């Protein structure tokens, strides 16, 4: 199965069963991830074409979660690279284990080896190389590589990433080129705080994830939180939809509606009642301005407390 960079040869085991986007959607659903047609097609093509999947969308729509679910479907480890400003090759690709190299040098010195060429050959050996996420992903098969929030890294890092994702190779000057026998499944996510370089996107399949529609969100809540009643799920999803249409600093994503519902369930809610909504709102909206807007405009509808604020307990 080594050889071709992409294609069907590399798909073995579980991956080989996935012969259509619908099949993948079913598998994702079995793993409690409800994907719509677009996302299922995107992930399917990423698997079949051996291309990285570039996911954009507002925070909390399930970009990271998709990578995790793909990993469990493929029964492969998830290798995650969380991006941040200043991320460099030593943290993303590989690093030399300097302490061990120095120890080795001391030992060689004690043994009387002083030939520089020989020493170089010994200490720049694969066993002194520490694999960071990108190198680890090339050396692990099968695996799912998640490059999370790539927009938070600076543009110098994009150059490394582009090189890795173009050929699935990493060149170590002292050692040579390390090549993935079979490229990993790659998911790159971005919250779009910065425009990512066009050349990087061109390598990828691009998908914009939307907030889920009402029915899908109800289904997600019921599936992820078995204790949740249908009434509560419907009321929560309805409220979430209304909040997303409203003018908020940070409209809630699915991650937040799940948190909120869980908070409501923990307090024993079977329906969305005003008192409980008020005390748990912090799980849904993380900005004071947004909470104020919600109360001012009565956005929680029937669940908005009538003037009394939050103090009410449950019946």
């Amino acid at each position: 199965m080594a050889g071709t960079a992409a294609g069907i040869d590399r798909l073995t085991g579980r991956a080989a069963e996935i012969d259509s986007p619908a099949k993948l959607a079913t598998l994702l659903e079995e793993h409690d991830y409800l994907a719509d047609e677009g996302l299922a097609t995107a992930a399917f093509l990423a698997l079949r074409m051996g291309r990285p999947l570039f996911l954009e969308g507002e925070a909390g729509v399930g970009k990271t979660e998709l990578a995790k679910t793909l990993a469990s479907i493929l029964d492969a480890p998830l290798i995650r690279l969380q991006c941040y400003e200043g991320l460099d090759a030593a943290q993303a690709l590989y690093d030399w284990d300097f302490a061990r190299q120095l120890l080795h040098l001391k030992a060689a010195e004690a043994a009387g080896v002083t030939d520089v060429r020989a020493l170089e050959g010994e200490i720049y050996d694969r066993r002194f190389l520490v694999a960071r996420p990108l190198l680890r992903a090339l050396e692990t098969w099968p695996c799912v590589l998640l490059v999370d929030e790539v927009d938070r890294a600076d543009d110098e890092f994009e150059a490394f990433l582009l090189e890795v994702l173009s050929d699935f190779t990493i060149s170590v000057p002292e050692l040579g080129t390390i090549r993935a026998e079979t490229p990993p499944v790659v998911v790159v996510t971005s919250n779009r705080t910065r425009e990512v370089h066009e050349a990087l996107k061109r390598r990828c399949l691009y998908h914009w994830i939307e907030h889920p529609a009402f029915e899908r969100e109800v289904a997600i809540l019921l599936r992820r939180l078995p204790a949740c009643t249908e009434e509560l799920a419907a009321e929560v999803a309805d409220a979430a939809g209304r909040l997303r249409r409203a003018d908020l600093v940070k409209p809630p994503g699915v991650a937040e509606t799940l948190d909120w519902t869980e908070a409501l369930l923990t307090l024993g809610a079977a329906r969305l009642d005003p008192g409980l909504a008020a005390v748990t709102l912090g799980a849904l909206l993380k900005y004071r301005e947004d909470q104020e807007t919600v109360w001012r405009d009565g956005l929680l509808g029937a669940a908005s407390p009538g003037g009394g604020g939050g103090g009410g307990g449950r019946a």
Partner: protein
Amino acid sequence: MPELRGGGTGDDRAALVSTLTGFARTLRAAGVAADHQRTQGFLAALRELDVRERRDVYWAGRLTLCSGPDDLDRYDRCFAAYFGGERPGPAHRVPAVTVTRFVARPGDTGDQDERHEADAAAATASEIEVLRHRDVARMTAAERREVARLLGMLRSAREQRRSRRRAPSHRGALDGRGTVREAVRRGGEPARLRFRDRKEKPRRVVMLVDVSGSMAAYADTLLRFAHALVRAEPRATEVFSVGTRLTRVTAELRHRDPAVAMDAVSAAIPDWSGGTRLGEELKELLRLSDVRGAIVVIASDGWERGDASLLGRQMERLSRLAHRVIWVNPHKGDPAYRPLTAGMRAALPHITDFVAGHSLAAYEELARLLGEGGSRPGGHAVRAAGDAVRAGDGIPAGDGRGMPDA
């Protein structure tokens, strides 16, 4: 290579490929960057799907030919036009950089009744001409040309911040790689330690230039100043025009020649001389741009047509995210000026520096502020009007004073 499923005979396949590449061409004409490589990706994707299925063609194209949310709407329209039928995709709400907001309506309760409401239409060639000959308040033409020339030469040193990236240095953290290499060179003895320290990087500047009617006299000069900023630090500067909508003009300002850059900006800004909805625009800015740690420069007279309390809330958020917020108000050059407009009053508590923007001296002062590193001025140091031109300095005739060479 697997064939296109449902492709039929060779002739059919050829026809199919030309239909599909024709679609990519249509997209290119509509402004989607569907280049050759992407088109190949499109065909490859369809080999994995069923080319007879309209949805499969839709998704294969969308996933391979588009590269941002701005492309999606164009893609859907092209798809419907090219393959016929309904718009196949899900309805989506995507943020766009240029969002048409409201055009000023008569009867709006703003701070001032604008007389240019009717002008808030798209830019035309004649309007670009108008911009070229726009009156910089109380200046003769010769003076204006001189100011423009001097602004073109303005070199603004940028405040530096410590980056998280390291480079070889005499201090800082131990550089294991360098130390080992040095030790090998010396036959195994780690006698000399190497270090790497954090690099300095220019701090990002995000500048907003109000192009509404009340700022008409200054917009050209301010944009020229913005041009100088972009030219000095192209990778660490973002410029937006604000009026009835927010427009990113950084790319237009990258051209070396100020005249060419200004022409491009004129063409790109669709809402010259309209009203201002600064609160709305700031909100949009905070949504689609990262101002964290940046110096935000707002050049406006604060004549807010919208809700001043919204402006106040957005300014509060902005001041929490940004490193510094500098407000440039051309009217501040007048000693009799008092910040009385509702917009200005709402914004004032959240401003780090409040400066004038009416004269060359004031622009140099602004450039100096952008180069001034170090400590954040305590509280909200609102500079007095006389502060902009310090006594004894005189008017620097373009000698670059106040712009320390980096």
